[in-house]
């Protein structure tokens, strides 16, 4: 298990010096980026998978009504194709297809919200540390080092034993500890950016540090940040799955794909494959989709990589 940052934080990409792209008009860069993104078939496939899964999970229940609150012990472990249950039912009689939609909602909401939260916190932390520099930077980064030294899953489980892991709590827990990666990334960007002439010019005209961070550092690092955010979403979805597998996921009747998959494990030996593979494949698909989108965005918006 890993963090996606590891998958992308390759030495070459870091080593390369950013070419001067300041002359190009901003809108041009964005349009160019969108064009590059649209030519990336894998990225488009990622967007399609993500939209499809999200669409089915959030809009599906409007057309496909199931009872996901009351158990029905008369209809447990029905095979797929049973009347009214195209994907069968689980051990307490919940319709599996309806449950997949419900579980997908949780997984996607937690993934997106935790990813956004982690990215926002990390961006501010990293931008301030990198821009201020000196002992403030050293202190802030040692805090990041210390938290990074604690393997995240151990930290998440520890928190999940202290508070009840409801959906908002899961978002808070994951978001509160997943910001370390973005913080390091943005700090690196800020370190290179603050030496640039236009920031020095702004400061010599009396601009404050806060203005430099808000108006220059964060907007310039935004490409890196957005790319990282997509990987954060993928990670958060996996973390929820791990927490559920370890028995500390959202309590029923709520559901998420990770929890369904973990429950499905118990049914492996009874041959109830429809409880195991659909949530497993759903998780793989959505994590892959996030990675495809992230890869496409990286090619499109991290200008320094465009040459490669």
């Amino acid at each position, binding site marked *: *298990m*890993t*963090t*996606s940052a*590891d*998958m992308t934080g*390759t*030495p*070459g*990409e870091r*080593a390369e010096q950013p070419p001067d792209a300041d002359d190009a008009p901003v809108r041009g860069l964005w349009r160019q980026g969108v064009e590059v993104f649209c030519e990336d078939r894998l990225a488009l496939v990622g967007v399609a998978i993500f939209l499809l899964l999200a669409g089915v999970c959030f809009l599906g229940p409007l057309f496909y009504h199931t009872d996901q609150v009351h158990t029905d012990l008369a209809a447990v472990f029905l095979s797929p194709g049973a009347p009214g249950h195209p994907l069968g039912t689980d051990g307490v009689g919940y319709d599996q297809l309806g449950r997949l939609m419900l579980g997908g909602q949780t997984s996607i909401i937690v993934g997106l919200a935790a990813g956004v939260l982690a990215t926002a916190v990390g961006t501010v932390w990293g931008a301030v540390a990198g821009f201020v520099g000196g002992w403030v930077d050293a202190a802030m*980064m*040692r*805090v990041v*080092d*210390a*938290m*990074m*030294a*604690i*393997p*995240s*899953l*151990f*930290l998440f*489980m*520890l928190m*999940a*034993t*202290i508070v009840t892991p409801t959906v908002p709590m899961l978002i808070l827990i994951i978001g509160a500890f997943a910001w370390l990666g973005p913080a390091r990334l943005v700090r690196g960007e800020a370190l290179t950016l603050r030496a640039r002439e236009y920031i020095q010019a702004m400061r010599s005209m009396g601009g404050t540090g806060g203005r430099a961070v808000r108006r220059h550092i964060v907007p310039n690092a935004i490409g890196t940040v957005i790319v990282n955010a997509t990987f954060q979403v*993928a990670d958060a979805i*996996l973390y929820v*799955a*791990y927490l559920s*597998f*370890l*028995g*500390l996921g959202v309590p029923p009747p709520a559901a998420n794909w*990770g929890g369904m*998959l*973990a429950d499905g*494990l118990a049914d*492996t030996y009874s041959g109830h494959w429809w409880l*195991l593979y659909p949530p*497993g494949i759903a*998780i*793989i*698909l959505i*994590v*892959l989709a996030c*990675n495809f989108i992230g890869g496409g965005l990286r090619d499109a918006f991290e200008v320094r990589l465009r040459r490669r």
Partner: protein
Amino acid sequence: MVRYLTMRLGQALIVVVLVTVITFVILHVLPGGAARATLGKDATLDQLAAFNHDMGYDQSLVRQYFLYVGRLLHGDLGYSYQLNQSVTEAIGQRLPKTMLLSLLSTLLAVVVAIPLGVIQAVRRNRWPDYTITSLSLLAYATPIFFLGLMMIILFSQVWPILPAEAPQGFTLGEVLSDPAGLILPTITLAIVTIAVYSRYVRSSMIDNLNENYVRTARSKGMPEWRVVLVHTLRNGLFPVITLLGMYLPALFSGALVVESLFNFPGMGRLFWQSALKRDFPILLGVTLIISVATVLGTLVADLLYAAVDPRVRLRGRAS
């Protein structure tokens, strides 16, 4: 080198101190406080007060922190009343086994990932590269327990050649005496690691293959295999040493899941079972030890890197 060493050691020390601050804070936000968390829900108020007094929890926070660190330095991580065992002893019995599992799968991952990464770099943007990249992405996107389960279904049900459960020995020797049981957990933990490592080797090799010294070697008429395997590989593998350190937290998180799935009697499973029982002395003890292990591992990796690559230590800046 001495300067780099001192600086890096100092940093590691600060990080360890900060980790103790974090565990100390968590100890104090526990529901009902540390006393309730240690003694359980049936403890009377008198018992709680006595415990708080014994541990110094009725004193000022700063003083408590120093008492806490003092106990840690004496190897006292607390006492688990649920296991009726000191936390140090409980962890001491399981830590070597977790280290064994982590070491084995890291070794396997390195041995497999380096050739894969080299092949990808040499055949860049051709089918071997695409195939390996796709498989890496797939491995990365699969929850590790699902992957482990697939392995169990494949290799101990459909084609029953390997046991589905990890060795249950109490000591390291007993675990090692059942090597067949170690295979599936090791491979499962290694697969995701391979995905990450090979990707890293790939891009590091690609960077180095574009360097001038490679062009020089080629223009001298050196055979391509020698350029790749002798000249480029040496330089391309240096960054992988740091990756070994950087990847440790993820490796331990993975071990937590793998140990729980395969019922491997290591520190991860201890942590998992303690989490379900809300056995906080153990939880905090494991968290602390696993973090110190991470810091030490990262430190060793960084120092190794500096030892083999003078560019790092001469630049004189870490992180």
